[in-house]
């Protein structure tokens, strides 16, 4: 069975069956990374471009390794800043990539909507690795896989997403995907970090981590952008006091409650060091699952199954 979508820009691009295929296929691909020879020939002769126009090490490496483990040739193109300043527009980049006859483009971009715009302009599939504050669908997929592997299912689970919801593409993709899979999501943040109408994306809203702690199956912490706090009106220390997941707070949660974070973490801001390293933390499992999910995405979108 092949995916119904040509591009993966938003969780909404995926049907329920697509989601099931990707999560199932990811489970098989996690085995590849456990072997001595961590490579299968599935995408031999295919070329994948990692177009990263915003700094990223983790996500870019994850996509790169995923492609290489499937034997694809992976080329990284990076840059930053606005195309206005750089003098090369997304349109010109799209034309260049098109002319290079690549088989897929992974794009990370600082602007919301950039992945969609690229997808409209080029023939090969586009995979969104994060566009501004819009979406980051593979992150949501790997998180769903992680929850499902640990708790047996996502359906019916209580998930709190804690942090700067306003600027989070991870939160938007997670809300869409976890909602589809039947989880009950609560977003937790100081009110000024909750965008207008967020409840219409299918979640309940809380201003207090302490109020919701004890009813959660998953505590999902978002990375706090210190640069943003530095220029904002709100103090990092104040945030940490109210929202940092420390040992004391975790002690009030269900003992089986999972701790997740998309990384990279700010120890002592959104999560205390001992909690991040503790037994309930799945932070490194998320990284491993990210690789499996991205292999699944590449294979399902580019492999024989797709043609």
């Amino acid at each position, binding site marked *: 069975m092949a995916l119904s979508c040509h591009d993966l820009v938003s969780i909404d691009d995926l049907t329920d069956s697509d989601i099931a295929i990707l999560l199932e296929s990811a489970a098989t691909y996690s085995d590849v990374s456990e072997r001595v020879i961590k490579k299968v020939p599935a995408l031999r002769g295919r070329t994948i471009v990692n177009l990263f126009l915003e700094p990223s090490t983790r996500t870019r490496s994850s996509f790169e390794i995923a492609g290489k483990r499937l034997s694809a040739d992976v080329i990284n193109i990076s840059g930053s800043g*606005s*195309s*206005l300043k750089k003098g090369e*527009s*997304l*349109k010109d980049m799209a034309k260049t990539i098109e002319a290079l006859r690549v088989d897929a483009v992974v794009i990370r*971009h600082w*602007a*919301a*909507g*950039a992945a*969609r*715009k690229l997808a409209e302009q080029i023939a090969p599939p586009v995979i969104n690795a994060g*566009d*501004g*504050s*819009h*979406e980051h669908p593979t992150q949501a997929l790997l998180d769903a896989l992680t929850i499902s592997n640990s708790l047996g299912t996502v359906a019916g689970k209580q998930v709190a997403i804690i942090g700067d919801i306003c600027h989070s*593409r991870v939160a*938007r993709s997670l809300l869409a995907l976890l909602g589809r899979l039947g989880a009950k999501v609560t977003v937790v943040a100081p009110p000024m970090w909750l*965008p*207008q*109408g*967020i409840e*219409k*994306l299918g979640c309940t809203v809380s201003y207090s981590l302490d109020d919701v702690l004890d009813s959660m199956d998953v505590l999902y912490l978002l990375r706090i952008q210190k640069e943003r706090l530095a220029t904002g009106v709100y103090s990092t220390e104040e945030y940490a006091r109210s929202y940092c997941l420390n040992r004391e707070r975790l002690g009030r949660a269900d003992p089986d409650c999972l701790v997740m974070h998309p990384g990279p973490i700010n120890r002592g801001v959104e999560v205390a060091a001992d909690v991040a390293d503790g037994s309930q933390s799945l932070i490194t499992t998320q990284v491993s699952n990210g690789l499996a999910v991205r292999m699944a995405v590449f294979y399902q979108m580019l492999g024989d199954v797709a043609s």
Partner: protein
Amino acid sequence: MSGKIHIKNGRVVDPGSGRDVVADLLIEGGKIVESFSKRGREQVIDAAGLIIAPGLIDMHVHLREPGREDTETIASGTAAAALGGFTTIVCMPNTSPTIDNRAVAEYVQGRAALTPIDVKVVGAITVGLKGERLAEMAEMSAAGVVGFSDDGRPVSDSAVMRAALEYSLALGRPIISHAEDLNLSGAGVANEGDVATRLGLAGIPAEAEIAMVARDIILAEMTGARLHITHVSTAGATELIRSAKAKGLAVTADCTPHHLALTDTLLAGYDPNLKMNPPLRTEFDREALVSGVLDGTFDAIASDHAPHAAHEKELEFESAPFGTIGLQSTLPAVWTHVIGADERGLQRGLAALTCGPAAVLGLECGSLAVGKTADVTVIDPKAKVKVDANMLVSRSLNSAFMGQDLVGSAVHVVKAGKLIVKEGDLL
């Protein structure tokens, strides 16, 4: 120069006088006349089934000359205006250099004199639109500017705005306010609300406009000056203007065809042609604006025609400049979305494009009374218009209505007794 024109069998709608009859309109010597003075050849236009209206007035247009002639010139902008049914347009001062002194104002006026329509000039309130020191408003007033505005930017400093309003009392010209609290707008690019939230776009709250309109009305009351709020986009600001008028303050306002026709739900495709400031708002706001036109809260509908080069509008939504063109889509959009088949809509919609803006700016035009300069627009209320690159003559194609099918457009346009558009073609 202009001979005799006989427009026959049309429905004459002159919102300023309330006249609405099927009648012939006679034009001679550049004026509207009761009867022709002498025998002789006359140009006959059959207007059966058509509406004969005063020449339309657009009180908010950005012509990019001087400075960005690659995106629009006074010549190309006025050609678009004439085809759109406008015989008078008013251009904003955010050119490069800024129209903040008499020399630049007179340069624009000189260039405009070569075009087939009237171009009135708005001078800047502050030097370089910086919001700091008043421009030489009296000098510009003497040169014939019709109002003052820092449009594109608000005058954020309340003391500077107060001074501008006070000074305008001596000059008899209105202050035209782009009302926006820049701190509240921040880095916003779309209406703050669930659509922007879903798309991950930074929001511009309605309150950025409402709060500044409230301040401006308070200052207008304090000074007694004439204040005009331009491109109103929110229900909240509409209500504030309605109550200011009810109080008898000298406050007037306009809104745009795009805010009357379109909403933020269209942003799902991140089309930069739909990015403008103020942003497209919600259906609730849109309906409030339409009501505001129908009850006369809005004196004018103005295009806020804002040309931008293709390479600028092809950027990411967040980087692309704000603005849509509108000279050729204003009448069709208003006809389609405000007027429709509604008789009250017809009177109010046409008033907002004719006598309404004329009254705001103290212009002589906008009327079909005998003895007036013959500025006439003949409208086919059933004509289908598809907004596309073929019909647009502007140097820029950044239309928020691109691809839309609209109904109602100008077929003939007479400027000062001279036929300048015939059967939809510029003569």
